[in-house]
């Protein structure tokens, strides 16, 4: 935390920037949810950029010297050219860039649009939508010529990316949104100068173990005959939800949240993302889940075996949307394959 | 239980007794048989020998009709005639196995505005439906007039258990469904060794000597076992054994008078239905003398002693019914 003389306002406090790219705003609220401690943040940091809460312009940031921002919490995925530009700019200006929240970390819900294409998305938003009346089929155009000259709006990309797929980041704080106590823990560590782990997309403010480790529900050996959607059953209290046929992602999801959802009978949806050493959260889920689906025995006829397993797996609705709900943009496949016209090919019935 | 019903040509004519008795017992058995509208001949045996494709198209037309008309039903078609049952099953099976055949047949069906997806309709024999869907317990409850002391030779013929493919309902070589059914009705069932042998089929028209010899064997064997009646489930078998019994007697100098009845007729009798409603009386070999036994009380004198002879070796224990 040096370079005080080059910092924008020069009041001696470390400089903090908070930015939202493609996101819902929940991460900002999570920051405010640290409660009284927000005053301590204000005490400790000088806020130099926070579009949601303070009146700074992009131009202001451009004018800051490089590396003058001590800490930048960047939430939101990279969905448009504007997001990408700001990612590069904030990278350039920041000493420590943190992918804050699931969107910046792994694409999160915006990333699910990688299961479709930009053109399909436009079609859904601006045309094939019951609440839209758009007879002229007007779509956002990146360049519009008006008498005064050309107007530009950002390009809407075909594929959503995470922050670290665009620029290197020092740290990642997972969660949709990150839990306030952990946000505070990280900020506090930075304020007090406590040692942080070696940078390089390093996860902080979360556990290195899966949610199950924090989950108080009783766990047994797992044999599952079929799966249920949450509305179909009322889970037995106190028992592992997965064992009851609810597609709980806790087994393959980083902990740190305190297993808030399973505690109240709601399956973990996977928002804290993948664990260290895992390359693909969805693939790991498939492997784990399919392993304990107790259908098919060695003595079965081969065709019958395939049929029975097929039927059991059919009770898992929308596997891509379930297993990659938060992690799509960070998965190995990253996005759906589309035809030359941008249409999504060969989707099968579940997404039709 | 609602099924499409495919009577077939024989039941319209010489086997009308089979049709009549089927309809008569369907009611107490709670089987709803809805006759297929506009059905056509299954082609019997000959047509398949002439040209396969027209034969399958002819058969499949009925399956296509059944698929269209089976709304609310269970996608099953019931045939009482063994040949019809075999042809319908076979056409469906071969079309499932060969998409090429299915495509050709469908081209033919399209001319009549029909189409058929193999596997849509399951063909059942009437015996299978009565024994396995209705069930022996339900039948037993309905018996008011048990056929005690009537010695019955259950005769299946060679076709009904030998499609040999999916949904086969009984052993191909040694079927027992009708044996069990007759036992439930109270009859004494003989272990008829020729139960799945051939009745001669259409050989009566082609080479009568061959046919008469085959019929003779069946009659002789039934007679050796003192059968009062041969019970059958196939119009062809009934016709050959019944109508040619006289010719056999002439040819071989024998004197057989064994009435040949449909199993549905005996079911009807056991249920207390009047003989006329069951088409009894239409047979050539008079069934009345044999049926005079019906309604008697069981004869208990004939039960064998537990061991006949001290030196005799024990007979192997058969697996109980229900096992294997």
């Amino acid at each position: 935390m040096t370079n005080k003389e080059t910092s924008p306002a020069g009041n001696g406090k470390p400089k903090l920037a908070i930015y939202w790219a493609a996101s819902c705003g929940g991460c900002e609220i999570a920051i405010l949810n640290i409660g009284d401690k927000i005053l301590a943040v204000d005490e400790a940091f000088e806020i130099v950029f926070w579009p949601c809460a303070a009146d700074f312009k992009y131009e202001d940031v451009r004018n800051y010297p490089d590396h003058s921002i001590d800490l930048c919490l960047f939430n939101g995925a990279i969905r448009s050219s504007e997001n990408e530009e700001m990612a590069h700019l904030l990278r350039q200006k920041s000493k420590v860039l943190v992918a804050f929240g699931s969107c910046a970390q792994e694409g999160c819900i915006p990333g699910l649009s990688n299961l479709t294409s930009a053109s399909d998305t436009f079609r859904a938003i601006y045309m094939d939508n019951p609440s839209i009346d758009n007879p002229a089929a007007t779509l956002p155009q990146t360049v519009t010529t008006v008498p005064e000259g050309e107007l530009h709006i950002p390009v809407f990309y075909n594929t959503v990316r995470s922050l670290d797929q665009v620029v290197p980041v020092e740290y990642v704080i997972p969660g949709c949104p990150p839990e306030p106590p952990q946000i505070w823990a990280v900020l506090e560590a930075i304020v007090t100068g406590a040692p942080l782990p070696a940078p390089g997309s390093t996860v902080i403010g979360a556990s290195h173990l899966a949610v199950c480790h924090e989950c108080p529900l009783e766990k047994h050996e797992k044999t599952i005959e079929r799966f249920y959607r949450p509305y179909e059953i009322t889970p037995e209290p106190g028992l592992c939800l997965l064992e009851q046929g609810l597609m709980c992602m806790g087994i393959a999801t980083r902990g740190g949240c305190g297993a808030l959802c399973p505690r109240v009978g709601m399956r973990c949806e996977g928002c804290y993302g993948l664990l260290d050493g895992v390359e693909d959260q969805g693939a790991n889920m498939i492997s784990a889940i399919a392993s304990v689906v107790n259908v098919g025995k060695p003595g079965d006829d081969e065709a019958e075996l395939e049929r029975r397993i097929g039927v059991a797996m059919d009770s898992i609705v929308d596997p891509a949307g379930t297993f990659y709900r938060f992690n799509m943009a960070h998965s190995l496949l990253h996005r759906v394959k589309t035809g030359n016209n941008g249409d999504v090919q060969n989707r099968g019935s579940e997404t039709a | 239980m609602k099924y499409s019903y495919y009577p077939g040509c024989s039941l319209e004519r010489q086997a009308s007794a089979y049709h009549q008795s089927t309809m008569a017992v369907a009611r107490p058995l709670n089987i709803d048989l809805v006759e297929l509208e506009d059905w056509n001949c299954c082609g019997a045996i000959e047509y398949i020998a002439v040209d396969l494709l027209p034969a399958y198209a002819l058969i499949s037309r009925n399956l296509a009709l059944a698929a269209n008309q089976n709304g609310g039903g269970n996608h099953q078609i019931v045939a009482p005639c063994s040949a019809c049952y075999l042809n319908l099953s076979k056409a469906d099976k071969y079309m499932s196995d060969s998409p090429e055949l299915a495509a050709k047949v469908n081209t033919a069906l399209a001319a009549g505005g029909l189409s058929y997806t193999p596997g849509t309709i399951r063909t059942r024999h009437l015996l299978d439906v009565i024994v396995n869907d209705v069930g022996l317990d339900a039948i037993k409850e309905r018996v008011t007039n048990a056929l005690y002391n009537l010695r019955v030779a259950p005769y299946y013929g060679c076709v009904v258990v030998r499609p040999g493919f999916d949904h086969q309902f009984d052993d191909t070589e040694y079927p027992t469904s009708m044996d069990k059914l007759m036992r439930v009705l109270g009859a004494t069932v003989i272990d008829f060794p020729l139960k799945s042998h051939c009745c001669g089929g259409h050989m009566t028209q082609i080479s009568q000597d061959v046919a008469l010899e085959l019929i003779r064997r069946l009659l002789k064997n039934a007679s050796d076992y003192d059968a009062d009646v041969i019970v059958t489930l196939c119009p062809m078998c009934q016709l050959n054994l019944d109508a040619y019994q006289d010719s056999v007697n002439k040819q071989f100098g024998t004197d057989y008078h064994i009435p040949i009845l449909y199993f549905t007729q005996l079911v009807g009798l056991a249920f207390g239905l009047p003989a006329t409603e069951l088409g009894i009386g239409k047979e050539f070999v008079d069934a009345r003398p044999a049926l005079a036994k019906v309604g008697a009380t069981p004869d208990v004198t004939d039960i064998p002693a537990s061991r006949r002879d001290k030196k005799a070796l024990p007979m192997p224990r058969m697996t109980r019914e229900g096992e294997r």
Partner: protein
Amino acid sequence: MTSEPYTPVIVGFLCNWCSYRAADLAGTARLTYAPTMRPIRVMCTARVEPQFVIKALREGADGVLIAGCHPGECHYVEGNIKALRRYTLLKQMLRQFGIEEERVQIVWAAASESKVLADAVDQMTLTLQALGPLRWRQTVLNGHGAEQAVRESADVRRAALAAQEVEGER
């Protein structure tokens, strides 16, 4: 996709006890089959993680073949059945990613069934030739850049207006 002939690349995961031996035997018996399968030996098909399959598809394979012992004959009792369960679910998911069903296949080949394995490779090669290359990085990850997205949105608009014209003429 492309009409020019291409040589597909298949990653083959072969179990040590049945299918790798079947492949060995195919060689020993000099069975000729398409040189398109690049083999990876695993102890059991149960060791084939779905992420291996996804990885292979992402890194440029046009197809993945998993080969194991017949169900009931697994050397680890029922590893192949676990593999079949994972494969079934994986395929359901890959369909959502627009990956054709035929690109990931599972085949049971006992140690003696070299022909089964060789035929499976040949058959899959033909199928993949008909489907065209997958080559995920080029065609999917780098294939639809920003410019294309812009062009596509213009296409959408053009198509919508054309449709309205047709509607109006009626």
